[in-house]
Structures are given as C-alpha cells and as structure tokens.
C-alpha cells in the first residue's frame, strides 16, 4: 500500500529515528512502512494519523 509518510516526515524535518521515537516503534518499522512493503495494523495507522493530525485516507492510499 502506498503512503505519504516520507513526505509528511520531511515536511516536519524529522528523521526516521525521530518518527520512530514519536510512534514508539523501531526505525526498521518506519523504513518498512515508508517503502510500502509493510502495511500497519489499524491501531498503528490511527496512531500515525493522530501524530500528523490527518485522516488515515490522506496518508495511506489504496491502490485498488
């Protein structure tokens, strides 16, 4: 699934480690999310949306 995590992170000038710390996950997890190779669970997706103050569907795009 595609997502705008990398862009949103860059806009805030956060490193992957910064974002990892704010979401309380590992840096590998951020990397796997940003490459679109790992889709987060709904709870983690909501945490990400809350952190950026955006609706989930503006961060994650269903390719179907």
């Amino acid at each position, binding site marked *: 699934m595609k997502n705008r995590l990398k862009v949103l992170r860059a806009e805030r000038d956060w490193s992957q480690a910064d974002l990892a710390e704010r979401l*309380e*996950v*590992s*840096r*590998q*997890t951020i*990397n*796997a*999310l940003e*490459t679109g*190779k*790992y889709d*987060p*669970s709904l709870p*983690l997706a909501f945490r990400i949306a809350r952190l950026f103050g955006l609706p989930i569907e503006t961060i994650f795009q269903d390719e179907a």
Partner: protein
Amino acid sequence: MGSPKSPAGRRYMARMMPAMLLYVAVLFGSIYILRHLEPGGLLIWIVAVAPAVPIIGAIVAMGLYMAEETDEFLRATMAQSMLWGIGVTITLCTIWGFLENADLLPHPPLYLIFPLFCASFGLAQPFVSRRYR
C-alpha cells in the same frame, strides 16, 4: 535473534544468555554425574533430564518475546522467521527419517532438533528482514 532493537528484544537477550550459560553448565554436570557417579533410581532420571530445563527456559524466552514485543513489525518478521525455522526443521527431519528408515542414515539424538530449529530460525532472519527494505 540479532541485535535487539526494542525493550522486549533486550529482555529476550537478558533471559536467553543466562539460559544458554546454564545449559552448558548443566549439560557438562549431567554428563559428568552420569559417567562417574552412576546414580540410580529416580536420581538418574532427574540428572538425565536436567539439561532440558534450561532449553525449555530458552523456548519460554522466545514465547515471552513474542508476547511482549509491542512493535508489530518486529513481531511479524520474528514470526515469519520462526515459521521458516519450523518449516526447515520439519523438512530436514522428515527427509532424514525416511533415509533412516531405509538404513541409509544413523538415528540422530532428538535433542539436536532444538539447535537445528535455532540455526534455521536464525538464518531466516536476515532474509525475512531484507524483504521489507
């Protein structure tokens, strides 16, 4: 499991290391007692099975890691690596069993299955992680 990247990973290492050290100590102690002191009755059973206790501890440490890991991605990659480990272990044991059945291979000690699982589980980890890079 490679370098721990989470609090649960650090706790896993803190449980696994003493379990492995204890295993080496108990294993040598058990072998020594069985060979030189020749215990009888119930004692021989206890001394003989003793090395399995720290191994069970190691298995429990793996289970606790899966239960305690709060990072869902790390948990998912660990679960996939464990499934690879289980698959490889069952495959090799099945092949060996049929070859043994035809008297082509000797009967291996069953306690080697755990190190076989650990080796295949460990080898699978970098390959599973690489899929998400």
